């Protein structure tokens, strides 16, 4: 799939989800998965239920610039410092969710 993802200047992280101040409470697995799903839905201009969360981010046409934006928005939302490369090491919604849950449990920065 070669869909070109077009990210709006204000970013889906502030548009598609109910962002809360950084560094606050721990997010539940369900919250994280929902946040990521809504994020992808916003990028794809689809409804969240239409997003196949098992598909690799790469299959959504996410390029490196989009990955950097996603991680920056995730950092704002979770309050955890993240490497921009996590999108490539944990390339689906469930895998990235697992990673973030783990990071929260084992000493977020």
């Amino acid at each position, binding site marked *: 799939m070669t869909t070109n993802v077009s990210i709006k200047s204000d970013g889906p992280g502030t548009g598609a989800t109910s962002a809360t101040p950084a560094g606050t409470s721990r997010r539940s697995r369900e919250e994280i998965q929902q946040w990521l799903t809504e994020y992808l839905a916003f990028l794809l201009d689809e409804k969240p239920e239409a997003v196949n969360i098992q598909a690799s981010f790469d299959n959504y046409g996410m390029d*490196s*610039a989009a990955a*950097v934006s996603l991680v920056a928005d995730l950092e704002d939302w979770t309050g955890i410092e993240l*490497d921009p*490369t996590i999108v*490539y090491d944990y390339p689906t919604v469930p895998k990235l969710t697992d990673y973030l849950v783990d990071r929260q449990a084992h000493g977020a920065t």
Partner: protein
Amino acid sequence: MKAADASLGASIQALEYHYNLGNEFYELWLDKSLSYTSALYEGPDDTLEEAQNHKVDYHYRQTHVEGVERILDVGCGWGGQLQRATRHYGVKHAVGLTLNQPHVDWIRKFDNPRIEVRLENWRDHRPDAPYDRIYAWGVLEHAARPGISDADKRGVYEHFFELCHRWLKPGGWLSVQTITYENAQRSDLNKFIEQEIFPESDLPSQIDIVCARDRLFEITRLRNDREHYERTLREWRRRLRANADAAQRLVGKDVIARYEKYLSLFMIGFHTGTMNLSRFAFRRIDRPGHPML
């Protein structure tokens, strides 16, 4: 177009756009020697400072620099490696070329009589005397512009190696460290890099370099260290973030955002193998085209 034509590579203005934000800005997030190329990590606990010294030491060992008379450093940046060559390796005279006046001012403050720094493009360099060793780290990334023909691009790298060959004494050595295309070509890279970070700069591939040195230099060592560059970038990014307030006062919020994005994109590029970091050691072929058969 002739390979010696400076317009085939990035202009001084393009390089200033990236490198000329003032020394204080770079001091906030580079190591103490202000080395602005990939470090070389020898262990999991290496600091950035140690890893930058390992990088310099690696190249110097590969090229047997100990005690030589004259070395040239093309694209010498803030000159930390010139200091190391003269202080730790007994080099008698170290010449550095840079296109940025702040680099020149910085190096002259070393007040090291063994170091000479020139504000000069390598294409225009005319040595006073031949060199024993030449170093070019972070130079070939800017040698060719995007959009020039493949033949012109090949010609640029051939010209670089021809000049280095001409400037070296018989038995001389050359060290090159450069970012290279790995699983990518120019059209695959993010436009942000070309437009916002390194304008007028195209990368070489390893095959470009291997071909360009043909019958001028023997490759004695090549190591690809993209993981080292990723780790270097991670540390630069961490330091820039840790000093964000001070950095913002110096260069403004937009520049910080631009740099953070660039460091992140490059981390991804090296992490995924889109780009590599290639370190070459070359021995000069003293009689090119005269095989001893």
